[in-house]
């Protein structure tokens, strides 16, 4: 489904991704963990081309995201149209929600289908209503983001991404900006998606959640994938010392408020 090959990304002097390779199968839930600054967000952003990549390539459904090979061994950046088309198929949920503050919850969810897919207003509305119901916010359709709690905003953001009927969902620390008591409601929505078979790539610090829903856990540090394995392998018997160190820090710092079953 998604195949990252030796992805390198540099910001100025700083090499943020150093040869990251990752394969995500259809229906798989992959959770990325790792310390802040290790390049997790950048990797996600490269996948839907919010960032360009320098070396390597990423394939989505077999199609190159970043470069187009042209005869003679050269490569050129993919066309803008193809990037837009790619993003339509990839849902993205941000740490800070990024809802459109000038639109109601319903309009936020309608916006993608309406503007990008060009469906009729009635169709977009029906779709948005059913998605808001799915994330438990049918009664908040007419509220503006400023009138919603963080957890509610994030659930609207998930509904907004789902409205494009994406093949893959990317979550970048979806609960990191939330008060502890609101984390659970958002994680539950993501868990439901997982059980419906949605292909997902989730960056999170919620280890209990990772353990519960991940098919595979990826540990990143300093722009590299250090270790990959089942939740069982990573959490119970991490091989790499850096993974062990990180996990013991996380348990200390992030406490286990919402998911007490952490290691």
């Amino acid at each position: 489904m998604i195949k990252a090959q030796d992805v390198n990304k540099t910001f100025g002097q700083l090499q943020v991704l150093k040869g990251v390779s990752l394969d995500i199968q259809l229906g798989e839930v992959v959770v990325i963990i790792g310390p802040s600054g290790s390049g997790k967000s950048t990797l996600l952003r490269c996948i839907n081309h919010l960032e360009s990549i320098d070396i390597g390539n990423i394939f989505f459904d077999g199609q190159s995201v970043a470069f187009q090979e042209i005869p003679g061994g050269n490569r050129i950046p993919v066309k803008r149209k193809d990037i837009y088309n790619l993003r339509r198929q990839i849902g993205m949920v941000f740490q800070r929600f990024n809802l459109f503050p000038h639109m109601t919850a319903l309009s936020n969810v309608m916006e993608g289908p309406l503007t990008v897919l060009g469906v009729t207003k009635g169709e977009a509305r029906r779709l948005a209503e059913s998605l808001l119901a799915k994330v438990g916010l049918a009664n908040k359709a007419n509220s503006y983001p400023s009138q919603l709690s963080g957890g509610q905003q994030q659930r609207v953001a998930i509904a907004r991404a789902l409205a494009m009927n994406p093949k893959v969902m990317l979550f970048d620390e979806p609960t990191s900006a939330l008060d502890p008591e609101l984390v659970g409601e958002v994680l539950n929505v993501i868990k439901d998606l997982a059980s419906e078979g949605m292909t997902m790539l989730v960056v999170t610090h919620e280890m209990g959640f990772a353990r519960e829903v991940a098919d595979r856990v990826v540990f990143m540090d300093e722009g590299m994938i250090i270790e990959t394995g089942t939740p069982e392998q990573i959490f119970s018997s991490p091989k790499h010392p850096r993974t062990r160190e990180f996990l013991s820090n996380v348990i200390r710092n992030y406490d286990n408020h919402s998911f007490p079953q952490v290691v």
Partner: protein
Amino acid sequence: MHLGPLDIDFILTILPNLLMGALMTIKLTFFAIVFGTIIGLFVALAKISSIKVLRWAGGIYTWVIRGIPLLLQLMFLYYGLAFAGILLDEFTVAIIGLSVCGGAYIAEIIRAGILSIDKGQMEAAMSLGMSYTQAMRRVILPQAYRRLLPPMGNEFITLMKDSALVSVICMTELLRAATLLQNATFRPIEIFVTAGLMYLILTTFFTAIFNRLEKGWQFQTGNKGELH
């Protein structure tokens, strides 16, 4: 009939001329705002564009226009163009001069407004698959619009007052109407007090409209404070 030092009967006789002038001031301001905003929007987009040449062109434009007195620009347009054999009527020159000048200031206002919108908004729009133009139109500009209203209101009022400068190129707007009356009658008090009051009414009216627009926006989003 007198009101203090003011001869009301005399004022009534000059009123038609001054009202004609005020009407021209309104016309000039209206066109300057419309064209100035269009110019300003495109220049602002050029200045934040990823294309170097556009950024550069936009930068030169605002640098030159904001760095030279409007009076000089108007004279240059009127006399300079005529000298070069390009003959335009006063009204056209006045509209061009005011729009081009207003456009430079409006561009800066719009640019600042767009840049003040959280980067996450553009990313969220892009991640839905919107094109740059769609994201601007549907997500960024509607939010910038609200922040733009207060400084735009100020700029429009400035444009209205600056429109008095076109009197130097023989456009008979409110100030020149007053000056002509003064030359003919030598009654400065009545003439300039009345003209001043007319400007004041116009600017007050403008301010009220903008306050209305701002309030309407807040009502619409249920958001009384800042966007976040």
